[in-house]
């Protein structure tokens, strides 16, 4: 059975759990990271020398990096609807996933440390403002894309890109800040909420 290593409050672990439920994969989860078992444990570092969760073990194959894991699971289970086999349509899904990982994710880092984690080392008000501004700029890019597709990130149907993006949108709404109005993003949040796996692992009260 697929083994998922990582505690369930981690946003990157939640991506994998949502993907598993969306695809219908049975898994066994072990707590690692956060306030649970420390990832600095040599047994964990042997699996991921970066000491980050999630890690999955599938029949001896050890994989890390949440977006990579989502793509692997969709590909292995032949879920063309989530990750198309055709290179051109697949790339439309993958580029939004990569954008989430490299660009979107970097924008919120300071604000989340300050406003969600209440980390005393992240309380510089200029930096908080700059992070919120950059975060909102990225949400606006997403808003325009959603206004164009009218439904989901990569088109009219749900795809693997909606997993990292859905969690990112949940984090946006769950973070205490003055939210500018983005209508397409708000509608998207409601649209995703029809999916039980999103309610369980995404919109579950955790930022």
């Amino acid at each position, binding site marked *: 059975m697929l083994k998922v290593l990582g505690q369930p409050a981690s946003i990157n672990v939640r991506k994998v759990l949502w993907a598993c439920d969306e695809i219908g994969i049975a898994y066994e989860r072990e707590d690692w990271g956060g306030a649970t078992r420390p990832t600095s444990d040599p047994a964990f570092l042997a699996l991921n020398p970066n000491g980050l969760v999630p890690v999955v073990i599938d029949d001896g194959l050890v994989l890390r990096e949440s977006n990579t894991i989502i793509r692997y699971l969709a590909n292995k289970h032949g879920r063309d609807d989530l990750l198309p086999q055709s290179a051109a349509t697949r*790339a439309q899904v993958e580029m939004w996933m990569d954008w989430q990982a490299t660009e979107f994710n970097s924008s919120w880092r300071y604000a989340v440390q300050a406003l969600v984690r209440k980390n005393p080392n992240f309380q510089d008000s200029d930096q908080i403002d700059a992070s919120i501004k950059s975060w909102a700029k990225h949400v606006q890019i997403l808003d325009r894309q959603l206004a164009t597709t009218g439904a989901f990130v990569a088109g009219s149907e749900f795809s693997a890109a909606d997993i990292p993006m859905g969690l990112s949108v949940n984090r946006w709404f769950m973070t205490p800040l003055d939210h500018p109005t983005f209508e397409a993003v708000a509608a998207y949040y409601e649209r995703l909420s029809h999916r039980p796996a999103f309610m369980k692992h995404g919109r579950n009260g955790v930022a």
Partner: protein
Amino acid sequence: MLKIYGRATSYNVQKVMWLVAELGLPHQRIDVGGKFGGLDTPEFLAMNPNGKIPVIDDGGVIVWESNAIVRYLAAKYSLGQWCPADAGQRAQADQWMTWASGELHAGVIGVFWNFFRTKEANRDWALIRTCEQKCVTEYALLERRLTSQPHLSGDHLTMGDIPAAGTLYRYFTMDIQRPNLPNVEAWYQRLSQRPAYREHVMVPYAELKDTL
């Protein structure tokens, strides 16, 4: 014909150009970004709403985000070689790419921006030291991986090697402190025998010095 938008001195453009050359794809590269500008025009933003390079237009298929472009080109033009056909091997290549553009990138491109590109008066030395230390941690992972095999992916280069290998020219030519990394250095030497790597990754970057 395949069009690649982006200046030749951009690390993220270099990943794409290196693969394009390895695959021998007929193409045209268009200079935008940096001193060329052009990333905030309505035409460019219509292709990439994120306003960054690289972007490709492959017969009407528009792709942005360098790693997504590399995976697309490898899957479309080189399935079974640059893109492994086996799902597990493909995922491992994907994992090295994602790791390199997150963790390794934070170290080496962090040093490049905060040290090399930033004028002395504006440098934040605590931040530069943090990035240097991140390099030590992350290149150590490469060093270990390369103990038993010539490339990250095994005996042959695949898309999984591109983002990490693409950082080596800058890492080994910047005037910074580096730990001893014999395997990584030997890898860099082997890669620099490849014409495509020499032409598209080993691109002098002096013009970017002290520009921030």
